[in-house]
């Protein structure tokens, strides 16, 4: 393999790794931002993995596609236009192309990894990651949230329906779960005492048509046994006893039981 081809492959590999690394850092920022937002909304933080993966895959693909010699040239002005030309003409063999390849190789020796890293951008990103991490840790420790999502859903539902929602019961159940001493609630809220309650049914307001009310029907339920249950005699009981002896035993039992 020609030296120029090896050098070109090497530089592409380097740019590829730096691109993936940069994209990963960006995706981590996205993860932390979403993690913070989710914590504030009382949504489990691990859901932030979804935007992280989406960002990593979508932008990663885009950035990797964008890796070309033009990008390298933009980072290393000394190679401007020469690198692309050398890359496009690596298969040609003449003195001008050879001299270009020599020049490009000489310049590439001075190319450092740092040339492809955005120092300022990287520092800003690292600071952002640190800051977001601290904020997330502190807010988690303090159990700080702007809004509970269940309350938010309830609020939205109330606003839409203009009344109570099915979620109200869920909320009440949750209150009991949260350690109230009595399942009947606090005494101050509900106290029946010994007062007699006078309850009346308003037939006019009920949906029951009394005229159609009939006596309860008696249903007969037959005993149906499963087919697979049956009795059988055991062979051990089939003893060979003579008829005389059988009569003696029969009489004996009739006598002790008092049967006629």
């Amino acid at each position: 393999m020609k030296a120029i081809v090896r050098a070109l492959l090497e530089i592409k590999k380097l740019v590829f790794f730096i691109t993936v690394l940069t994209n990963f850092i960006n995706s981590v920022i996205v993860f932390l931002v979403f993690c913070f937002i989710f914590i504030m909304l009382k949504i489990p933080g691990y859901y932030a993995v979804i935007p992280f993966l989406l960002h990593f895959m979508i932008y990663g693909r885009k950035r990797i596609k964008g890796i070309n010699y033009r990008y390298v040239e933009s980072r290393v002005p000394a190679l401007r236009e020469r690198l692309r030309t050398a890359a496009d003409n690596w298969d040609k063999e003449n003195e001008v192309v050879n001299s270009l390849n020599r020049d490009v190789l000489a310049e590439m020796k001075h190319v450092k990894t740092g040339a492809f890293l955005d120092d300022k951008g990287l520092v800003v990103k690292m600071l952002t990651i640190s800051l977001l991490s601290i904020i997330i840790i502190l807010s988690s420790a303090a159990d700080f949230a702007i809004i509970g999502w269940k309350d938010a859903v309830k609020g939205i539902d109330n606003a839409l329906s203009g009344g109570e929602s099915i979620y109200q019961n869920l909320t009440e159940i949750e209150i009991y779960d949260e350690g109230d001493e009595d399942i009947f609630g606090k005494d101050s809220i509900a106290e029946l005492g010994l007062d007699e309650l006078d309850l009346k049914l308003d037939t006019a307001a009920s949906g029951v048509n009394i005229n159609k009310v009939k006596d309860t029907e008696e249903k007969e339920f037959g005993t149906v046994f499963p087919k697979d249950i049956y009795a059988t005699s055991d062979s051990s009981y089939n003893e060979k006893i003579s008829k005389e002896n059988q009569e003696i035993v029969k009489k004996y039992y009739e006598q002790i039981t008092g049967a006629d």
Partner: protein
Amino acid sequence: MQPAEVKVHLDHLFKGAKQVIVGQEEVLKQILVAILCDSHALLEGYPGLAKTLAVRTVASLLDLKFSRIQNTPDLMPSDIIGTSILEEKGHGTREFKFQEGPIFANLVLADEINRATPKTQSALLEAMQEKQVTVGTKTYKLDRPFFVLATQNPIEQEGTFPLPEAQSDRFLLKIKTEYPSFSEEMEIVNQYAEESASVVLKPVLKKDHIAYLQKLTRQIPISNDLKKYVVDLIARTRQKKDLLQYGASPRASIGLVLAAKAHALIHGRNYVSKEDVHKMAYPVLRHRIILSFEAERNNMNEDDVITALLK
């Protein structure tokens, strides 16, 4: 030889030319571009702008056979190509012998080409294209290298025969000679209005050198991005109907890439840059496009349109 070494030799040539011509550096460079591309150039400019002098100077610096054709309306094709003459042999026999015309040279200066009739122009342009001439049934190959550097002026159009677009397309470049700057004109006055010793130029490049440089020019590598840029630029000349009635042909794409290569070599570079393409776009395209009425109404010339295309 490396492009950087070539530059040293060519700088020596330009230095020699400067002894005779004041300013006009771009004109000299573009003439050399045409020579390196093994093609022809058309010089256009007002009278007195050293068009002919520039060509003569270049001819002196190149160790080539030089001839000059002063085009006039009564010039015949045979005056350029040559003709068969009856030659007296011994023993009372006579024989037709072909007498070569001025076209049989390495560097031909066709002065005021637009003054020749279309028939004569055609004869010249055919020789430029085929690099051979046919007289009767016989075909004569022209000596290589072969360049035609033609001149014309944009005024005094009466009694002239402007080159049709199809024929001007045969010239790789249309070089515009501009008026010199004040200081340059002062220098011209000092140099030519006073008695001074005439400058004798020594040839810098020989035939073999030129052939080698032409080979080297084609070897200059160009990136695919730039090739696409050139093709796209030429395609845009055909698409910009608001500015151009007719665009350039694929011959312009080939010419522009080749001219950009030569420009890079003159500057001692072993690769073509976008700057080379931009610089050469003007002389390569200006005679290959026809402006639309709208562009002319807006007082735009060919160079303005090319500038708009390059943006």
